[in-house]
């Protein structure tokens, strides 16, 4: 059975001429058993209307036997057709039994002949179709189409709501950022470090709460967080350097500091 290659790059497999016995076993050239039958029928050189199905069946069976003798691989459907034709042949040769459920041998033969004619007919129109002036083979479309230019005119959409929301949001962000910029007075880490180093100079080994010392730097109440945060950071740093000792008795309790024992009191002040 021919491999169903969708496209063939070569010319269709050799036209099967008559009287070339070698072709008789060239199963590869056929598109299935029906195609083979049609080819055999054509060789009877009679109108398909008057074909002898009996003769055709015998030829087909002979063909298949020859092919098998030559140990050609045959697709199952060729064998199925051979078996069916053998059955049809026997029924055609034997006297018809009285009318039963099954269709008569004559009916079966006629149906087969009809199928062959139908296949032949579609083959003919397929050929006619292929012989038409095909686009891209015989006739050609515009080679350089000039596409319709689409001028996109953007019409922008925006609602008053969107406009007001956009404005209000920006202004609100602006208010907020301005508020903090104006009011925030930051006590930087450097400030804190300097102040603490001065403090260490005054300490004489006694524990002092950090808060009491820091009060003077809290110029306004709002500065308390920044002063505390920076002072604590600076304190911890100085503890790490061994200049201060720090202690807190419990969470949220005042933080006590004193100069470390071996502290060199730094000549900063």
């Amino acid at each position, binding site marked *: 059975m*021919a491999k169903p290659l969708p496209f063939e790059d070569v010319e269709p497999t050799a036209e099967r001429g008559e009287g070339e016995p070698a072709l008789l076993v060239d199963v590869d050239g056929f598109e*299935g058993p029906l195609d083979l*039958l049609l080819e055999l029928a054509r060789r009877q050189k009679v109108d398909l209307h008057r074909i002898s199905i009996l003769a055709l069946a015998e030829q087909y069976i002979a063909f298949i036997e020859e092919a098998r003798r030559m140990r050609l691989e045959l697709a199952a459907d060729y064998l199925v057709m051979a078996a069916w034709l053998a059955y049809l042949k026997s029924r055609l040769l034997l006297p018809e039994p009285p009318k039963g459920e099954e269709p008569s041998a004559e009916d079966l033969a006629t149906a087969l002949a009809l199928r062959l004619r139908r296949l032949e007919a579609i083959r003919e*129109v397929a050929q006619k179709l292929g012989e038409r*002036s095909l686009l891209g083979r015989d006739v*050609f479309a515009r080679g350089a189409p000039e596409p319709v230019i689409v001028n996109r005119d953007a019409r922008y959409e925006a609602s008053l709501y969107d406009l007001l929301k956009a404005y209000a949001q920006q202004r609100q962000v602006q208010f907020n950022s301005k508020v903090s910029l104006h009011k925030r007075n930051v006590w930087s880490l450097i400030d804190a470090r300097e102040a603490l180093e001065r403090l260490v100079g005054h300490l004489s080994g006694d524990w002092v709460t950090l808060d009491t010392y820091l009060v003077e730097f809290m110029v306004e109440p709002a500065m308390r967080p920044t002063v505390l945060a920076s002072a604590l950071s600076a304190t911890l740093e100085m503890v790490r350097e061994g200049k201060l000792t720090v202690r807190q008795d419990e969470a949220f309790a005042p933080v006590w500091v004193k100069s470390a024992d071996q502290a060199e009191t730094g000549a900063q002040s």
Partner: protein
Amino acid sequence: MMNETDEIEDVEAPEETSVESRVPDHNEAIRIAEALLFASAEPLGPEELAGRLPEGADIQKILEDLQEIYALRGVNLVRVAGKWAFRTASDLSFVLSRDVVEQRKLSRAAMETLSIIAYHQPVTRAEIEEIRGVATSKGTLDLLLETGWIRLRGRRKAPGRPVTYGTSPAFLDHFGLDAIEDLPGLEELKGAGFIEGRVPSDMSVPVPSDAEALREDEDPLDQDDLFQEPLDMHKTETGETGEE
């Protein structure tokens, strides 16, 4: 105010279009149609043309005139798939085919399958196989779908709900057919009884039919089908679906 709106209806009336007065417009309309058709590689339908032509242009006449003007030229105006297109004259294929980059020829099996689909549509794979007496490889149908010449139509209302195949407008275009009824040898096939309408004859549905509308015995495709065959889909619909 209200009673003055009557005027609106009369606005279009004055143009009685006696042909005489129309001539210059007609020539201009011909030129426009000519430019549109000439510029396009794809066939254009009368509706598409109408949208671009001056109001009230006689499209039928314009197309007839254009067809006549070009009848003997190296480029002809032809009707394909119910639309119009300029195509090189078919008798000149000998000069032009040299350009063709290794045109791949459909195999006999594919050509037969395509013909069966064309003449027997809507048709199922089993019916194709019945006619050819051999199994149809998936590859053949896939390839035909890829050419854009066939399409999945729907599903037959029958056990197993097999998919039905039919041809597309691209098929008509490629084979230079105006309508599916123009298939060569169609009448002979019908006459010989080889094309049996599965639809009762009183329904006057033409056999074969490549109409968009499904037949009585067809169901629409399932949602899944649309994704199984992206190749087919993006031929018929504009993008969206078959894109991965």
